[in-house]
């Protein structure tokens, strides 16, 4: 195997795993190949997908965001309360703006605490998680159904008359935009830099504090988009919206090759992580796995993700060091011969 090929395999390991997993499920259930089934595979995780992107960006910057689910749920609840209690009849476009603004503001609050006041990101976002799920119960208090049809169509509708859900298309567009932001803009480069080496980032003149505020703001914004998608998918706002998915946001990002220590990862990989969770979801449903088994299986997925994450870098280093090692071995043999 050439060096380039092995490196490409290691860099895109998740897609190789996806392919193998897909083929295994295909052998069990050949109907999986139908376009309808492939689309629903991604549709079932498209809301979660947004949360995974939100998490991935924060992880790349070397931080955690435990509050992505809470932001999705809270911003959705604010919208529902606006429409049902406070200002009935608010146009759907205004509702979308309210949702996105709420998510972004919570993100800015997290970013301010973590970046400017130097609070540990895990503790800060955990506090936000508890705070905003708590506030949801006060503002909403029950499952809320009353929402305009257009607002619900983001997460529940289809593009024209096709079988393509709006949320899947939106997820793909989001992936492309986030990819461009991370790789082609100054902000993206700086996010990677901070995650890779915060002190070095300072010596390069990067304003670490402000960049962190932006990172959490982006995460909050994307989480609010996820909130809109969840609402549409379920046609309602539940008070535990996205709560069970919190750990899957880490699993998806890490499976996709985002380093838990920060500084590396790419969106094509993260998208692979989302697709992996989709395949698992469909596969487990197909095999009629009992609900009680879902939790432990999630645990196993997380464990695999962490192992992959740890060894991916080492494997890569191994491949790159192989050539020089061969040279050393030769030298060594010469030494031994003397």
């Amino acid at each position, binding site marked *: 195997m050439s060096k380039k090929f092995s490196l490409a395999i290691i860099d895109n390991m998740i897609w190789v795993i996806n392919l193998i997993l897909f083929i295994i499920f295909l052998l069990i259930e050949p109907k999986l190949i139908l376009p309808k089934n492939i689309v629903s595979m991604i549709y079932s995780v498209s809301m979660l997908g947004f949360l995974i992107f939100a998490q991935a960006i924060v992880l790349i910057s070397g931080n955690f965001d435990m509050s992505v689910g809470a932001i999705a749920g809270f911003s959705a609840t604010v919208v529902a309360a606006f429409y049902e209690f406070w200002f009935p009849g608010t146009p759907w476009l205004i509702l979308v703006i309210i949702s996105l603004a709420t998510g972004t503001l919570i993100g800015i609050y997290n970013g301010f605490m973590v970046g400017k006041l130097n609070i540990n990101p895990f503790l800060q976002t955990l506090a936000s998680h508890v705070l905003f799920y708590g506030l949801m119960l006060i503002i909403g208090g029950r499952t809320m159904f009353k929402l305009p049809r257009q607002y619900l169509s983001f997460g529940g509708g289809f593009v024209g008359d096709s079988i393509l859900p709006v949320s899947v298309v939106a997820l793909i567009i989001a992936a492309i935009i986030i990819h461009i932001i991370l790789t082609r803009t100054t902000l993206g480069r700086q996010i990677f830099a901070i995650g890779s080496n915060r002190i070095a980032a*300072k010596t390069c003149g990067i304003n670490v504090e402000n960049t962190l505020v932006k990172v959490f703001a982006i995460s909050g914004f994307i989480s609010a988009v996820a909130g809109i998608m969840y609402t549409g998918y379920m046609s309602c706002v539940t008070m535990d919206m996205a709560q069970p998915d919190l750990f899957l946001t880490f699993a998806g990002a890490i499976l996709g090759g985002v380093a838990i220590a920060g500084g590396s990862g790419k969106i094509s990989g993260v998208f692979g992580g989302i697709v992996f969770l989709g395949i698992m979801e469909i596969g487990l449903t197909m095999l009629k796995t009992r609900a009680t088994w879902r939790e432990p299986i999630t645990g196993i997925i997380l464990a695999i993700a962490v192992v992959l994450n740890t060894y991916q870098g080492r494997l890569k280093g191994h491949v790159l060091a192989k050539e020089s090692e061969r040279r050393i071995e030769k030298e*060594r043999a010469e030494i031994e011969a003397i």
Partner: protein
Amino acid sequence: MSPISNNSDYAIYAKDLVKMYPGTLALNRVDFKLKKGQVIGLLGKNGSGKSTLINILAGMIKKTAGDIYYFGKKVDINNVQDSENLGFRFVSQEPYLMDDLSIAENIALREKELKYNFKSVNWEEINKTASKKLKRLNIALDPTIPSRYLKVSEKQLILTIREVLSTGARIVALDEVGAALSKYELETIFDLIREEKKRGMSFIYISHEIDEVFEICDSVIVIRDGEIVLEGDISDLTSMQLKEVIAGRDLKDESEAVSKKEFRPSDVVLKVRDLSNEKLRDISFDVHKGEILGVYGLRGAGRTELLTTLFGLMPADSGTVEFRGKDVLKLTPAERLNEGISFVPEDRSEGVFDCRPIRDNLFMSSLEKNLCKNNLLIDFKQEEKKYYQIKDEFDVMAESIENEIAYLSGGNKQKIMFARCRVAEALLYLIDEGTKGIDIGAKFEIYDLMNELASNGDSFIYTSSDLDEICRISHRIMILYNGAITAILDRDEIRKDLVLHYADGNKS
């Protein structure tokens, strides 16, 4: 003559020691012998393999091949605990003490009874033992104060005392302890070494300063590129011989390699007046266009702090800093970069983004200079064009701009950090220890680069703890002591003894 009886004269006898790293052979069949009651000088340039040797003996890294005998007995050293039990002590050049513990507690950390038993702590005894040890060396410090309040030199003293006077110490390795100590303080350590030597303790003395080696060592070993190139009694050697062997080339070549271009002070680029903060006191100096200003001082004298303050990473309490006629003291590091001030930190781990490709590393301080016409996206083509220019100019050994920088050698990483300032269109380079831990070839390439940039009108403030280096490359040398300037020497006044004299805190 059995091998056992042959070895038992030696405190340490390491035979055919080999250490391999992926990519390099750090030690190549080294035979290292240390007699009982001997002080051996271990010399060699950075990256020559001397730290590898010491780290193997201290149990920090594992040898690839070879045998080690302690007092005639073959031993296996698998971890630090093993070497400690054999009586090996190591005084590192970074004086790591537990900042929140008192001097006495730090000293007591080495005592066995305290380390392994759960019995209650006898504070009185701990303080008494510590003050006894301090008194023996005439050090007037209260053993109960937390060590965070100590100066770097005092920390180094405490650390040395702790290791040398700890129970069970039989061999002590001292790694460049002189770099942080004044002459007087170093004399105290030397007295201690001489006393303990008589009792049969052995020492390994690592240093860059030839004069120190001549003063304290009985014999020397010089390591170069992982091999012992010279072994002998100190009385048989001259300092010129030693220097030549260490450098591995004719010293006359070296001095010629660095251009002796006449530098005539013209326009003042940087004007610093009365700059003070918690680490600096009333710093005033000028830097001219095309000048290389060397900054020398003992460790802890404020060299790094001066540079980080000028770059804006450390706040200034008072004073003015004028760069090309503009007051920059209130500006952020990013704004100073735009004005043309760049900074290369001492420790590469503070300047390099290890898991990022060369592209990110090279352009991180000049992202805005490579934007497309729409001012939104980064122009990859433009970056690549600049990269190929830099690759030629700086002679960087790298396959592709997308390769992670972690797989480059130390010298090439250093070049990328210099190049980062260059692509950011720096006019003033603040460089902290620009050649630390890189091989001698790369060092000279960097000197040449600096000279070339300087002759094109760029200015440098360059700190180094290598006295030879600072004397060789600087147009002027500014000497710091305890955060204040003791002297600024012009090119024709630069003499090593003079530099050392001021570095010890003597005023002119």
